[in-house]
Structures are given as structure tokens and as C-alpha cells.
């Protein structure tokens, strides 16, 4: 699986010329910073549009999308290279099943990611959801437990279905900020950043609209209701995050399995043994001796 053929990024040609220019410019910028490969991990609940987002970024139908069910039973890595720059996008199946985290799916994702470096995490959710539910928290916690807190400093929150009119005439920007604020709060809680934690990373929120009916501007770029062309904006944000100084996450065995509990406290064993002897074995022995002396003796046993 790891040795997938790295194909030429042809899909980029499908983008509008303005988008192409912007993308190439950003890639060039990354190359200047000695980033020749970029691995993007896409995670989120099922049915929020992870695969569509991947397809949108790549610019071709790299992963099959089905509107009703998960077509992606296991993670898929799509690699495209352009002018010496390789972009790896890892699409994952939704890790929620029946209201709970599917541990096996998560396990499979972890194993798939073994010995890979994750540069960017795209946490995908829908914009047109009104409430942050418990599932969200679970997913975020599962991600944190799997890859550690540090991954959130390399994360972007991606809200799909951005082309949507907020209910009750709420201004679009206000809805967006409210929604993203609620989500970020959940992320912070789920990733268990405490309030005192000074290193709370600022997680950018990006809007995405994968639909073919997405509005376009005069340069034929796909734009959001607020007027920004989202693909360049997304890539730009990614670039910013990459260059924000944090380290990318290398997934090794230790990270997946956590610290080896068998090693913990091993040096203390002689001390533990000594304490056990002094504070457990000895008192019990004393208690036995006092039992013997307190034993009720029959009258014939006492005399003589």
C-alpha cells in the first residue's frame, strides 16, 4: 500500500487558470522551504464529504464517492506530483458507526499510517449542521488518543457544504463564525487542552464547497458565498500551517501503541518488593502470631 505509484498531477490542469497559478505559486513557496512532499490526512465523521474534498483538491475523481454509504472501507492514499513536488492525500473511512467510534476502523487507519509522516490533518465536518454533538467529541478524542495532542497544531478544520443559506436570515458570516467557534471549542475540549495550556494552537477554519453547482466567479474559480475562491484559500491555509513552525507527526509503533507499559516503573521493583515485605508480609505475620496467642483454648489445654 505504501508503495503506490506516484502519478503526475494532471488534475491540476482541470482547475481554472487563476487557481492553477495560485496553486503553483504556493507549491513553489513550499519548495523554497524545503518541503518537497506534503502528506495530508483527511479525517471526520462519515458522510461529511471527506472523499469529495479529496477529489476537489486533486482536481480529479481519485476516490469514488457515493452519496449514501461509505465506499471507502479502508484508507486510501492518493499521491500526485507536479514539478518535483509530491502531494499525498490520505482519505479515511468515517470512524463512526452506530453512534460509537469504530475502534477497528480506527485501528486500521493507524496501521495504514504506520511509518508515514503526517504534515496536515484536515478535520472535516459540515457547515450546515447546527449543533455540535457528542459524536464530534468522540471523534476528536479518538484522533487525539491516536496521534497525540501535537497533531492539532498541524490541523485545519474544514467545513463542507459551504454554499448554503443560513436559517432565519442569519448573516452568513455570523453563522460561519458561530459554527466554527462551537466546533473549535469542541476540538479544544476533545483534544484536552486545558485552559492553562499556553500552547493552544490556533486552528484555522476553512470553508469548502464540493458541489458541482458551486458558484463560480468571473475567473471561473469556485467561490464561496462570501466571495473567496476556496481551493486556493485552502491550499494557502495549508501552506501557512506547514510553515508555522510546528513539527509534522511521524507515525511510528510507539505513537500508535502508546508508551510501553511494561517498562514503566521497572526500576522501582526492588523498592516495591522491599515495601511489600515491610508493610504487608510483616504485619500479616504479626497478625498470625497474635492470632495464635489469642486463640481460645479449651480448659484442658490450659492447665499443666
Amino acid at each position, binding site marked *: 500500500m505504501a508503495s503506490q505509484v506516484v502519478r503526475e498531477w494532471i488534475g491540476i490542469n482541470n482547475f481554472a487558470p487563476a487557481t492553477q497559478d495560485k496553486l503553483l505559486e504556493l507549491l513553489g513557496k513550499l519548495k523554497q522551504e524545503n518541503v518537497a512532499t506534503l502528506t495530508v490526512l483527511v479525517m471526520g465523521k462519515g458522510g461529511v464529504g471527506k472523499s469529495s474534498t479529496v477529489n476537489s483538491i486533486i482536481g480529479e475523481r481519485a476516490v469514488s464517492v457515493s452519496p449514501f454509504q461509505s465506499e471507502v*472501507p479502508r484508507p486510501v492514499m492518493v499521491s500526485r506530483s507536479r514539478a518535483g513536488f509530491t502531494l499525498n492525500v490520505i482519505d479515511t473511512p468515517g470512524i463512526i458507526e452506530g453512534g460509537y467510534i*469504530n*475502534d*477497528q*476502523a480506527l485501528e*486500521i487507519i493507524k496501521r495504514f499510517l504506520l511509518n508515514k509522516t503526517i504534515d496536515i490533518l484536515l478535520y472535516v465536518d459540515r457547515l450546515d449542521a447546527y449543533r455540535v454533538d457528542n459524536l464530534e467529541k468522540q471523534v476528536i478524542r479518538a484522533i487525539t488518543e491516536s496521534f497525540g495532542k501535537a497533531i492539532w497544531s498541524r490541523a485545519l478544520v474544514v467545513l463542507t457544504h459551504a454554499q448554503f443559506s443560513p436559517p432565519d436570515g442569519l448573516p452568513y458570516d455570523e453563522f460561519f463564525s458561530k459554527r466554527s467557534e462551537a466546533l473549535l471549542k469542541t476540538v479544544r475540549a476533545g483534544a484536552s487542552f486545558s485552559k492553562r495550556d499556553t500552547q493552544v494552537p490556533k486552528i484555522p477554519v476553512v470553508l469548502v464547497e464540493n458541489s458541482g453547482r458551486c458558484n463560480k466567479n468571473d475567473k471561473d474559480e469556485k467561490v464561496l458565498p462570501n466571495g473567496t475562491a476556496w481551493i486556493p484559500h485552502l491550499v494557502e491555509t495549508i501552506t501557512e500551517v506547514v510553515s508555522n513552525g510546528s513539527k509534522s507527526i511521524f507515525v511510528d509503533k510507539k505513537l500508535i*501503541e*502508546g508508551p*510501553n*507499559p*511494561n517498562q*514503566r*516503573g*521497572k526500576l*522501582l*521493583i526492588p523498592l*516495591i*518488593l522491599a515495601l*511489600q515485605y515491610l508493610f*504487608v*508480609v510483616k504485619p*500479616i*505475620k504479626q*497478625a*498470625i*502470631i497474635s*492470632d*495464635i496467642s489469642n*486463640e481460645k483454648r*479449651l*480448659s*484442658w*489445654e490450659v*492447665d*499443666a
Partner: protein
Amino acid sequence: MPALAAQTHLPTATNFPNSPASRRRRRIPPSIAVSNNPHFPTLKCHQSSSSQTPQPVQSNPSKPHIKSIVKALALSSSVTLVLKFCSFLGNGDGNFGGGSGGGGGGGGGGDESGGFWRRFFSPAALADEPQTREWDSHGLPANIVVQLNKLSGFKKYKVSDIQFFDRRRKTTVGTEDSFFEMVSLRPGGIYSKAQLQKELENLVTCGMFEKVDLEGKTNADGTLGITISFNESTWQSANRFRCINVGLMKQSKPMEMDADMTDKEKMAYFRSQEREYKRRIDRARPCLLPESVEREVLRMLRDRGKVSARLLQKIRDTVQKWYHDEGYACAQVVNFGNLNTKEVVCEVVEGDITQLVIQFQDKLGNVVEGNTQLPVVRRELPKQLRPGHVFNIEAGKQALRNINSLALFSNIEVNPRPDEKSEGGIIVEIKLKELDQKTAEVSSEWSIVPGRGGRPTLASLQPGGTVTFEHRNIKGLNRSILGTITTSNFFNPQDDLSFKLEYVHPYFDGVYNPRNRTLRVSCFNSRKLSPVFTGGPGADEVPPIWVDRAGVKANITENFTRQSKFTYGLVMEEVITRDESSNICSNGQRTLLGGGISADGPPTTLSGTGTDRMAFLQANITRDNTKFVNGSIVGERNVFQVDQGLGVGSKFPFFNRHQLTLTRFLQLKQVEEGAGKPPPPVLVLHGHYGGCVGDLPSYDAFTLGGPYSVRGYNMGELGAARNILELAAELRVPVKGTHVYAFAEHGNDLGSSKDVKGNPTEVYRRMGHGSSYGAGVKVGLVRVEYAVDNNSGTGALFFRFGERF
């Protein structure tokens, strides 16, 4: 015997030779003064119902000691145990040859000594067959009074009834009076004139009566009514009481008094006798009788005023009752001295042990040289059985139990018998029959397993079974080698052969050292289903993992008490984990999303290969002071166990795995102890902590759930963790000979499931913690309980063997 002498020293000679009464009322002490060569017959409990036993004996079941022996018998399980006890049958002429024969050999008391036995039991024996009409009519007119000497010496008279007439009080004494027991005649018995005369003679010499006569009254049907009229002896009142132990002292023999002595000589003679008696009292040792009994006797003396024979009898009974209740079965009041003074002196032979003899017998009962070394037996005996102590039946029972627990003997008898060389002394004889040293046993079973097509075929018959061999008591020091091999198929024993070979070496510090340490070395193997690889509720069936262990174990056990002990030793073992098809597997299996099975579950071993070898030290200290109060267990039990890895083995395992179990059985109500009394309600509190620091292979992880962890769940259903805590409470209420109980239990992994490699708790979808509650009833050995588990909220009925705690 001169009248005066008899009155100052009254031997409590209330025993009569050949009297069923003396056998029945065995508390009546023998007259040691009279019988210079008494034999103490031994009674085996199973002999008490022998055909020789006559009706009168059986009809009176007041045999406390036989009863207690039956209890002792019930205590021992497999071997027949007989605690012989001393039954002091009074026997004036010492003709008791058949006594021991009747007790021991059954037939031994046959014709040879049958003369005695016939006489002994003759009234009843004859009364058994009245149809033969072996008695003769008196041949006299009815309703006339006949003097004893007027009766014919050739006739056998049938006695219709016996009456006692107190001349002083001018009343007829009821049958409940203490004098009645002194007469061996029974209504309905058949006696010759000689027998009646002998009876009278005994009554005269016993010292209880100043005057006694026996007359017959003829009845119309040819039988004879007997009237015994008497004058009770009395002495001047006393206000002091003293009890002395005259055991092992020479019996003072009264000097023959010459009839021709002058008054002066007589005075001198009595004075010397008195002096001698004083000396005797001074020499006597103090006795065990507590002050409370002495006070009771003193009260009796004060209440009565005059000291009468009846009162003395009562005192004797009181004193003896105390001794016998305390278990001093050989204690006897032999004499009352110093009568006609202010002080009553009660002479007691307490039954001092002069000698302890250990004997081995072969199967036929011959004395042989045993294989067992004597110190092995001797160290099991309570010190109260050693010479210098007073024999106590409880000590004898204790000895019996202790020796029985050695499991070396098929028959054990603890038998006190009188010491012929020293008056009043007891020789404790311990007779042992040894078990065979070498035993081998094969038990087999055939199992028919389904062959092809599900039908049993001949080829599918599998011979299985167990071969056991044992070499016991090596070198006579109770060392033993025990081996067992079990397989379900002897044709293919490699499939499931399980074996155990054990060498036990007791008295590790030497047989004379009071320290009781036992060395055990054993080779073993075992195969168990791992509860670590079990699914949670509702999860698909998890493919099972078998854990095979084989190794060598050497440990030393030090017993502090019967229940508390300390064990420490070294274990070296190889652990192999196998899957369903007996292939070695290194990881647990798990079902994938799509339903497939992948073998990359949690690792089963530390090494990751499916085979671990390791050596570790193991120590276990158990403190257990539980005891039974009317059948329900009360007390506390603490167990601490630690396995300390040594870093020797695959992947150099170094760990400290420890468990502490605390159990309290709290008695909620004070109850009177005794057989048949109801047991108290008991609250059981139980806590178990298990933890491990260092390398922890999954087969050593602590599992939660199961009948001995958290009831209501399956084994391991709640999880497998590095540290666990289990808490339980159970309330037991006795109901009609059994008990009902209610319980609540909780088990928690303390968040340590993730610290087991591969997190089997999570992989197999288990909660990691859980509670349950329920109630049940104990029916015999089986507990029937209904338990509700709080994780799913559902309940189920369980049948379990044995106790939870």
C-alpha cells in the same frame, strides 16, 4: 472389717461385681481398695451394639462418651478411627478376663470367659427367652414374707419387683433414689439363692448402710417380690471440704486389728491410723477441681447438716460430673476419708498418665515394628498426653485428629489403660495400623466421540483415564512421591496429556524441630482457556486461546496454624499459547469489520512468539483465623501473594505481580455455641487488589468477571487489566439448616486495561468495570443464585459449586 475403721474411711464401694448396673452407670467408680488387680476394659464404639450386649444396656442410652466418640468418628472420613476410652467397670473379684476380649475381639468373650459374661448378663439373657420357663415357682403359699435364708438353694427365683425400705424414715424409697443404682437385681430377672445372698453381702460391705436385710414376698404366680430394708450410715456434720489427688499413691492398707486388743491398744491403733491418714493427705497432690465446685459441695454439706451416705454419693456425683464434663474421663472418686470430723476429704484418682506407648499393628492386629518413625507420631500429640499430665479425652481426640491428618494410618486407636505397676496411673496406648507404602491406581473411562457423519463409530472409542502412583512415608518420615497422568485418549496421549509429579518432604528442619516446614518439589503441566481472550457482552465469539504451562516448582511451606501459612519458592515454567486447532499462536485473533478473521490481535506472550520461558520467585502468606460457629464461618482471612520475576527467561522478564485479598466474616449476632443451635447471620466483606509492575504477558493479566471475581458475568467478561480492584459484600441469613444470601459486587480495572499490551479489554469490546447484585440460597453443596449485572441490566440464574469466599 471393723465397723469403726469402715466408718472413718468410707470407700465409695458402690460397685458390684457382675452387675449390669455398674456397666450401665459407668460413673460409679471402682473400689481400688478392693480390687487390687483391676482390668479396664476398652470399648469400641461399634461393639456397643454387638449381640452380646443385653437389653438393659441398650435400653439405657446414657453413654456420653460413646456418643462423643461417634462424633469423633464422623470427623474422620476414610479410615476407621476408634478412640478407646477407659470404662471403669467395677469388679470386685477381678474376674474380667472377658472384658477386653469382648471389647476387642468380639468373639474373645466367648465360652472361655463366658462364665463371667453369663453371670453378668444372665438376668437379661434369661429374660429374653421367657417362653422356655427357666425359672422355678417358689412353691410356697402366696403373700407370705420369706427370709433370704429360707429360700431353696436349688431353685431359680423370678423377681417380680424390688422395693427399698428405709427403716429410719419408715418409707419405701422410690426407684429414682441413688441407692437403687447400687443393686444389680432387676425386676423380671431370675436369680438363685446364692446370687441373692451375694447381692446382700455386697450391700453390707459397701459401707453405705449400717444394717441391711433382704426379704422375699411370695406372689400368687410363683414369682417373688424382693424388699430390701436398710439403715443408712450417717456421720457427724462437717463444714469443710477438701479434695485431694491420690493418684499414683500407695493405697493405705488397714492394719489388721487384733480382736484381743485392749482398749488402750485400740486407742493407740486408731491414733496411728489417723496420723497415717494425715500424712497421706499432706502427701497428696492438689487436684484440678475448681473452687466453684468446692463451694457447691460445701453448700451441700451445710444444707444437710449430718453427713449421710446419700450425701456422700451426691458429692461424689457432683465431683465426678465436673471431671467428666471437662473430659477427664479417667477421674474417679475413690474414697471419702476423715469422716466423723469437721472436714470431709474426697480422694480422687484423676488419671495421671504414667506412660505413653505407641504401637504398630499389622492387618491382623499383631504388634509389629512399624515403618513410621516414632517422632513423626509423637510430634502430633498434644503435650497433655505426655506422662505427668492428667488424661483428658479431649486431648485424646485431638491426638486422633492430628495423627489422622498425617494420612499414614488406616486405623488409629488412642487407648488409655490402667497402669498395673502404679496405682491410679494411666498408660496411654496409641495403636496404629499403617497404610501401604506404595499404591498405584488406574481409573479409566471410555468416551465415544462422534466420528464421520456425526455417528459414533468403533474407531472413535477413546480410552481415557488417570494413572496415579504414590510412594508414601519414605524412610518413615512421611516423605512421599506422588505422580498422576491424565489423558482423555491413551492412543494419542500427546493431545492432552496432563501430568503431575510431586515430592513432599515434611519436617524440613528436622523431625524434632517444632518448626513445621514442608518442602515440595513438583513438575506439572496444565492447560487452561485464557479468560483474557473473551468477548464482552454481545460481542461476537472470540476465538479461544489455550494457555499451556509446564514447569518445575519448588517451594517451602511453613505452617503457623492449621490454616495460616507462609509459602515461598521458585517457579520455572514454559508457557505456550495455542489457538483452537492447537497451533502455537503469538497473537489473539479478532474478527474484522467485514467478518473476516485477522490474527493480529493482542499478543499472547511476552516474547511475541507464542512461547515464553521464565523463572520467578513466588511467595504467599495466608492468615486465616476463621472458625465455625454453629456451622457458619466467622473470622477473617488475609492473603498476600507476590510473584517476583528474576529477569531470567525470554525477553528477560522482570516484574512484580502482587495480589492482596482481605475477607472478613462478621458475626452479626451473638449466639450460643453448640450442636443443633442455629448459626448466626454473617456479613462477608471482601476486597481484592491485584497489580503488576514491569513485564506483563497477557496470560498473567488480571481478569475481571466470573464466579470468583464479579458474579453475574462470565470469566473475563469485564476485562483484563494490569491493576484491578474487586469489592464484594454478602449478607448470609440462616434459614432452616441452610442459608440465604444477598450480595453486591464491583470490579474495576482502575483504568489500567490500556497498560496491558494490545489492550485486550478494548479489542474484545469489554467495559473494564462492572457491578452486580443478586441473591441466592445454598442447597447442600450447590449455590443457586440469581445475579443481575449492572452493565446490561439483565439477570440470570446460576448454579455454582463451592463457596465464593
